[in-house]
């Protein structure tokens, strides 16, 4: 059992600098929770407050129902994997992993058994006698994880553990950490600024911006139902496209882009919730994969003049402009397109998102 609960957690440096503002969320037992957000939004600070490495300015932190605000890190039964791994350079891999157990005067036979078991899980058996200096980045990362798991703590905290690895290794370690989560049935809080990691690994995602929580939900819900423009733009790669425009009534309700060149019929097919925005500014959001080939002018299809093409092999990214802003569409690689040419495209009307330009909140149905 390990549940963490943050209630109105705030972190201030001095009087003015509030880096975490009123953050509340729960981590359920055995859950893999991901904290994601742009650089400097307070992810590490939040994680370090959970670990006890950083004082909590105000609010309450509970672990298994117990208030732990003033409990020193060692009594919280938490293990943390640091971004730069923080392996002790003067100790062998074995000693690095055994360090915490030794401090707790665990019997030697037990230490060795646990280290060997962790080494087996992580494929480190042949490296136990090496020093960290003689390991590759991926191996070091595994040792750091090994050091965390030998102690069998209640909670694991990860602070961007994969950001120092190359792309391929990152994908591999991603699945390894997910597997480890299943095998250990551990409660994990995982910090990253990489939305792919958040989407693929998390049971739930907490999206932070400037010390505030923007949304907490499962990856799919966050992806399909972002609550505001920031979340919509942050989750998903390539990012969601935004088109500024107006809702107008001319023999039916239309969305018209600011430059007037793009027109999308809204009625009679629904969107009653947009009525309040009649003749007002609105932001349309559409994901690159929700733009398709085909469609006639009458049915809100449009002609895109291609600026840039990015063939990815299995698909192709097509860039064009609306309102002088870059829009990207994700099309099948067989698409017949060339730079300078044009394509007939259409937005998938079932997958549109609309945002209030003032609050940037999503307009709910």
């Amino acid at each position, binding site marked *: 059992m390990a549940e963490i609960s943050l209630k109105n957690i705030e972190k201030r440096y001095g009087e003015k600098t509030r880096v975490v503002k009123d953050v509340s969320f729960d981590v359920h037992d055995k859950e893999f929770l991901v904290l994601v957000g742009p650089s400097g939004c307070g992810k590490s600070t939040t994680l370090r407050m959970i*670990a*006890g*490495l950083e004082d909590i300015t105000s609010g309450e932190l509970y672990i298994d129902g117990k208030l732990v605000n003033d409990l*020193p*890190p*060692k009594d919280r039964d*938490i*293990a*943390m994997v*640091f971004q*730069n791994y*923080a392996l*002790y*350079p*003067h100790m062998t891999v074995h000693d690095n992993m055994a*360090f*915490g157990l030794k*401090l*707790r005067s665990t019997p030697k036979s037990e230490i060795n058994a646990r280290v060997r078991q962790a080494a087996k899980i992580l494929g480190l058996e042949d490296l136990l006698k090496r020093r960290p200096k003689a390991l590759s980045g991926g191996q070091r990362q595994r040792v750091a994880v090994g*050091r965390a798991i030998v*102690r069998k703590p209640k909670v694991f905290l990860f602070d961007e553990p994969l950001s120092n690895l190359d792309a391929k290794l990152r994908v591999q370690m991603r699945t390894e950490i997910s597997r480890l989560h299943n095998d250990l049935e551990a409660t994990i809080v995982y910090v990253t600024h990489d939305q792919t990691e958040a989407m693929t690994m998390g049971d739930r995602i907490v999206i932070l911006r400037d010390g505030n929580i923007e949304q907490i939900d499962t990856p799919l819900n966050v992806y399909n139902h972002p609550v505001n423009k920031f979340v919509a733009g942050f989750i998903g790669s390539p990012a969601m496209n935004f088109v500024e425009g107006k809702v107008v009534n001319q023999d039916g309700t239309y969305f018209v882009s600011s430059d007037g060149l793009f027109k999308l019929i809204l009625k009679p097919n629904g969107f009653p919730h947009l009525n309040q925005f009649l003749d007002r500014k609105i932001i349309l959001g559409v994901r690159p994969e929700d733009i398709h080939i085909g469609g006639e002018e009458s049915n809100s299809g449009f002609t895109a003049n291609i600026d840039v093409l990015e063939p990815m092999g299995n698909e192709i990214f097509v860039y064009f402009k609306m309102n002088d802003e870059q829009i990207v569409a994700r099309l099948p690689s067989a698409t017949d397109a060339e730079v300078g040419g044009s394509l007939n495209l259409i937005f998938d009307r079932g997958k549109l998102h609309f945002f209030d330009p003032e609050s940037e909140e999503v307009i709910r149905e």
Partner: protein
Amino acid sequence: MRRNKLLPYFLVSPYLIHFLVFVAFPVGFSLYLTFNTWNIISPMEFVGFGNFIRVSQDGLFFKAIFNTIKFLVVHIPLQIIVALFLAETLNQKIKFRPFFRGAFFLPVVVSGVVVSMLWQQLYGFDTGILNRLMSSVGLPKVGWLTNPDVAMYSIAIMATWKNVGLYVILFLVGLQTVPPQYYEAADLEGASHWQKFRHITLPMINPTIFMVLILSTIGGFSLFIEPYIMTGGGPLNSTLSAVLYIYKQAFTNYHMGYSATLGFFFAFIILMVVFIQKRFVERGDQ
């Protein structure tokens, strides 16, 4: 063209002149002296290896070396332990940290003569503040500088006080190179203050410890001002350091040739010690 060829020599000439006058000539001249006797006034007299034979039979010189070693045995460990303790303390978030850092460094820049005279007062048998404190709590007075068994250790303590600031600075630099994540990781693992110091700090600043060891060895071997001012080498030659003995041979007894020979001999001993330490350090590095 000619001017261009001479200009570089002209530019380095201050160093060359300094080197020739204050390094090359004295070394060469002393080397020459080792084969002669000379009392400055009368002409030199060639004695071959006479001076060297005399060194090997000079009990007082070996006593002086022994005294110096006695000094080092107390001075070096004391210096390292005290400096490390102070550096570790000054590396914490304590109040008035800049003030304390400055305060501990102050004795280093104060003249050794001044410090020695100050401590001479502190160590005074009847009027010294140390003994007055001792008697006020009912302890017997100690002959800090008058008891032959104690005097050298008193000087070692004083020298530590004087030099420790320098090594505190060196250790502080060493401590600040230890990445804070190591301590944070250890905090989470449940390490106590002492365990962190023992298992992380000490191994991480190993190179600094060795540097301090070598610097304080060389510094300690050249012990001179303190006994010269405070005891003049007494009582019973118990604080006669090697360098002080060499000085006395030259400028009290005017045995210039013999003093030069002692100087070379002693330099050779220091060289050997540092050489051994260096081998030791290099082995520790692997």
